[in-house]
């Protein structure tokens, strides 16, 4: 729908442009600047061209981190989306208990990320953590600082604990928007529980689920704080995800050039994947899922 033309309106956008320039454009340009130069300290820079990009693309270290990252995102999506839907389907739709559920579900979302990491770091410890101690006591060997599987298990469980509620809340909102008449009609048609889910609930939830998948994918792809607090990327490099690797490179080794190139590519990968993902999902949606 077309609105009345008024060119003066552009001036109103100016403050935002200034703000975005300082908060995003200028820092990003700094990174771009670093990515094409080399330095030996003392603020002396040399032109390096696309050298760093080539080096990063040939670096096995980065490819390994990317592989781990994709595995991590894949696993948590595969768990959180179905689990979130399941939780939403079983939440009370109205009354006192529905409010209680909503509050409980929002709690993990309100906890700062480093606190989440700390909670699980302690929770999983074999000496004082409830989870670690219990598993150890029943004879399951569990030590996330030594064992690769245990480390992965811990960060995945942590992410599922932290973020499933978000998926569940979104799915719940989708479910709530379905008019009662649909359920009544399904009863009259003698549709099975599965059919009700397949033909009524799932189609009506598709919109919000798409948003949930997109959000969870991007967030998990950029995850840093929580796994870093728990495992520090270890044991070895087993849980060194992309962002952890990047920070190690930039701040640990102070390899500014490669790190800048790395982060630009990282950024590009996320944008591309989000775009591809969104396009695929909306086409599916249009075609009728």
């Amino acid at each position, binding site marked *: 729908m077309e609105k009345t033309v008024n060119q003066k309106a552009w001036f109103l956008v100016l403050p935002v442009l200034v703000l975005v320039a300082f908060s995003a454009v200028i820092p990003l340009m700094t990174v771009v600047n670093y990515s094409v130069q080399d330095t030996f300290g003392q603020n002396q820079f040399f032109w390096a061209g696309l050298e760093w990009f080539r080096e990063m693309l040939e670096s096995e270290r980065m490819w390994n981190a990317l592989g781990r990252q994709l595995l991590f995102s894949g696993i948590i999506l595969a768990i959180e989306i179905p689990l979130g839907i399941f939780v939403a389907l079983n939440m009370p739709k109205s009354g006192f208990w529905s409010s209680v559920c909503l509050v409980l579900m929002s709690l993990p979302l309100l906890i700062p990320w480093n606190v989440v990491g700390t909670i699980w770091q302690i929770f999983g410890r074999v000496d004082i953590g409830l989870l670690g101690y219990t598993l150890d006591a029943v004879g399951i060997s569990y030590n996330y600082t030594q064992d690769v599987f245990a480390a992965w298990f811990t960060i995945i469980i942590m992410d599922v604990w932290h973020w499933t509620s978000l998926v569940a809340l979104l799915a719940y909102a989708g479910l709530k928007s379905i008019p009662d008449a649909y359920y*009544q*009609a399904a*009863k*009259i*048609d003698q549709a099975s529980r599965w059919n009700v889910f397949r*033909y*009524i609930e799932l*189609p009506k939830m598709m919109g919000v689920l798409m948003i949930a998948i997109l959000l969870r994918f991007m967030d998990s792809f950029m995850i840093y704080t929580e796994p870093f607090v728990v495992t520090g990327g270890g044991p070895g490099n087993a849980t060194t995800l992309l962002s952890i690797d990047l920070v190690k490179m930039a701040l640990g080794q102070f390899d500014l050039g490669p790190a800048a190139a790395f982060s630009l590519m990282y950024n590009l990968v996320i944008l591309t994947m989000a775009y591809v993902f969104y396009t695929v999902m909306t086409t599916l949606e249009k075609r*009728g899922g």
Partner: protein
Amino acid sequence: MAKITLDNLAHSYLPNPKGEDDFALKELNHVWNDGEAYALLGASGCGKSTLLNIISGLLHPSQGRILFDDVDVTAATTADRNIAQVFQFPVVYDTMSVRDNLAFPLKNRGSDPAYVAERVRKIAEMIGMEAELDRRARGLTADAKQKISLGRGMVREDVNALLFDEPLTVIDPHMKWELRTQLKSLHHEFGHTMIYVTHDQTEALTFADRVVVMYDGRVVQIGTPQELFEKPAHTFVGYFIGSPGMNVIPATVDGTTATVDGNAVPLGRSYGAVQGGATLGVRPEFVSLTDEGGLPVTVRRVEDVGRHRIVRADLFGNDINIVVGEGRAISPDMNRVVFDPAHVNVYVNEWRQEGEAV
């Protein structure tokens, strides 16, 4: 198809209803005949949807029983009652094709695929959607979606009753005609027991064999469209049915004569001596505007509604509406009205008096 018996039925949404006012549906006893088409007509909040939901089993009544063919189904679930229902807004399974939508109730009951295919073909022909059978339901217009809902309701031959909850609300006036007559034809063809809830008198009267008029949680009259029009049992029926509704005029009644503000009005039947005040109910169609005889009126405005005109006038301080047919002249000296005695009804405490033939 089934006969539906409402036995001592009442419903309140409150956990502990005290007086009659707490009941959304007041006590009701009635038998609805197998194969007839009924309409539940009333303003919003009159209890018609409550009654429909009790029949479909979506609501459990606070009191009384409901029987299908003399079998008590009060405790039975919606699915067990074997009914079909069409809702106010189209309910279609968006991701399914039109064909699958129509077949869904049959498939769920494990019907033979050949039978399903044949039934779907027949229903598609009835609702005029043969060409769209393989389209996805998503993206169809509201009209088309509601047709699918109607078709899904119709697809099972063995239903006890077909229930409609204001099914034409979202349909354009031009389309309403088509769908309504289709329903009517279907009823003639298959003879299902049908119950149709609406606030629209035209829909109710044209659809139903018998119309159940509800007012304030109570059934005030059950009758054929003609009975409701000519002999409204309650002034509410007179007001609610007909546009404009029935004129009500305070009067005193004695025998075959009513007196309105000192003027005698002849009646078609004899009422004996009515104690206290009565009201006369005369439909605007049975009032004629003349230049002599009858009662004096002051004409306030004349509305031309095409096939007739509505004259809005004042009769001894009461509003009175008169319908004047197309092609009949209205002149300024026409300031009197005459009632057709055969169509003057007498009401005491809002209820119609039967009177005796003379």
